[in-house]
């Protein structure tokens, strides 16, 4: 069995040989640093005006520091603003988000370009300079008559009703404010729920094997008898169960909270990936139904939204033969399921505590795809 200690020992035993050229370069750099320091000290002694300049620089530095401090203080102000929200208000906002029928916020009319620009600037001011609205937005309940030319928010649809005229700074700040508060509330409630369900009891290898089998059974319909070998490797933080069948294998990762975090599927002698695969968006949408079921089964949570992406080459074909299905779940967490066209099956599924991490991942992948001359395409509904 390969465990953490063995890996550490192996690293200790085989020291990495650093090239001699590196030693030399480092020695040169140290000399450079020493000379630089001496030179600076000498210059300070010879040129009184430099000291004046330095004094000026110090003043500038102090000014910059003060600005930084005020920015830091503003961030603290925002944190404080959110932190002091009473528990029942946090719960109220979280419930609103969870119970809303909409996946995302919407507006009764599109924001004008100018409004969007101002909103972006005000968001920075809100987050970094502590510029908050004077009042909170007017919340209305479902079916309530919307007063014309008055900004209000309908939580059950997550919809902002906007006046036809251009929004004022105060109104834009009210929108930003409620968005931040709702997001904070969901995060807080999610953390709380996690704390409550977190188990500190370490489970046995047999129990882990059972968890892994259950996951594979529910996701792929495989039975224990189909596996020739099942091995459990207990690590400090994330345990690993490998189930080897005749021609296929599953690797299941189990967290210290005893949750199945990830399941990977592989077929012996075959890769989950192929290059330049023809697979239409209509086919991707068809697969989506199956993926949604698997994600619901795997997480036991309600799906709030789905995004489907694939990396397309210049001809519009799948660059790697895989399609990514990204899900936002009701509690603010996320789940990613990757479909392999070669396997005709999902080959990887994993959960992430925070859906924002998934959004960041998508963004990073878009940038990387772009660098390689491909496009990360979103499948339209």
């Amino acid at each position: 069995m390969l465990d953490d200690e063995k890996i550490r020992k192996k690293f200790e035993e085989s020291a990495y040989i650093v090239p001699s050229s590196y030693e030399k370069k480092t020695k040169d750099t140290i000399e450079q640093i020493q000379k630089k320091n001496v030179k600076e000290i000498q210059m300070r002694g010879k040129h009184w005006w430099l000291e004046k300049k330095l004094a000026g620089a110090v003043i500038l530095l102090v000014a910059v520091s003060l600005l930084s401090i005020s920015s830091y203080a503003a961030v603290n102000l925002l944190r404080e603003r959110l932190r002091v929200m009473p528990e029942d208000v946090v719960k109220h906002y979280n419930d609103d988000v969870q119970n809303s029928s909409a996946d995302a916020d919407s507006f009764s009319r599109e924001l004008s370009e100018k409004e969007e620009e101002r909103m972006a600037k005000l968001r920075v001011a809100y987050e970094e300079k502590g510029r908050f609205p004077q009042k909170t937005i007017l919340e209305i309940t479902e079916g309530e008559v919307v007063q014309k030319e008055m900004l209000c928010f309908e939580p059950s649809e997550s919809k902002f009703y906007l006046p036809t005229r251009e929004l004022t700074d105060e109104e834009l700040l009210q929108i930003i404010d409620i968005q931040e508060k709702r997001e904070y509330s969901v995060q807080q409630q999610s953390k709380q729920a996690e704390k409550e369900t977190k188990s500190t009891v370490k489970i046995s290898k047999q129990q882990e094997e059972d968890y892994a089998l259950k996951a594979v059974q529910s996701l792929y319909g495989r039975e224990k008898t189909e596996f020739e070998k099942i091995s459990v490797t207990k690590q400090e933080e994330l345990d690993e169960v490998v189930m080897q069948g005749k021609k296929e294998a599953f690797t299941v990762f189990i967290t210290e909270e005893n949750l199945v975090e990830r399941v990977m599927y592989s077929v012996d002698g075959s890769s989950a990936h192929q290059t330049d695969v023809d697979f239409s968006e209509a086919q991707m949408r068809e697969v989506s139904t199956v993926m949604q079921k698997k994600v619901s089964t795997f997480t036991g949570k309600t799906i709030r939204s789905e995004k489907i992406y694939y990396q397309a080459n210049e001809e519009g074909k799948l660059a790697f033969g895989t399609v990514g299905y990204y899900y936002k779940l009701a509690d603010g967490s996320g789940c990613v399921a990757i479909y392999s066209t070669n396997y005709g099956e999902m080959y990887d599924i994993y959960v992430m505590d925070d859906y924002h991490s998934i959004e960041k991942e998508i963004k990073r992948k878009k940038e990387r795809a772009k660098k390689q001359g491909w496009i990360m395409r979103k499948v339209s509904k």
Partner: protein
Amino acid sequence: MNEAKFIEQIDRYKNDWYVIARSILKNHEDAEDIVQEALLIAFEKLGTLRKEEKFKAWMTRIVINQAKMHIRKSRKLIYVEHPGENREAQMTEPENDDIWEITLSMKKEWSVPTILYYAQGYSLKEISDILRIPVGTVKSRLAKARQILKEKLEDSLC
């Protein structure tokens, strides 16, 4: 931290920073140069270091930033996304069962946490701070790296 202490620390940890740069850049010349750049930057910024005991981790962070910036600028090493939607490796097969060789041939997302955790003794939290990623992500990256090490090294470890 004064200059003497700074130089003493360089002498002590320089090899650790080299392997980190090497694991990101995948070639030794760039790794050598990047650490030198990072050392000069660190010296300039030394005044911003609040806790001396955090020096090694702070410097590691600078090395990582410089290495990543180098990739962006030079595009010498174009990051090839694994088919597996960024979670799998673009790997070159190491020639033998040397743990360093295997680790350094891994995709940087796996090699860097592996080196920090197993070879340099950082905790998961510290790695999370250095790499600015959640602890959960550190864990799953280590799990994947272990999987690779297991495949390549199991015989020699039994």
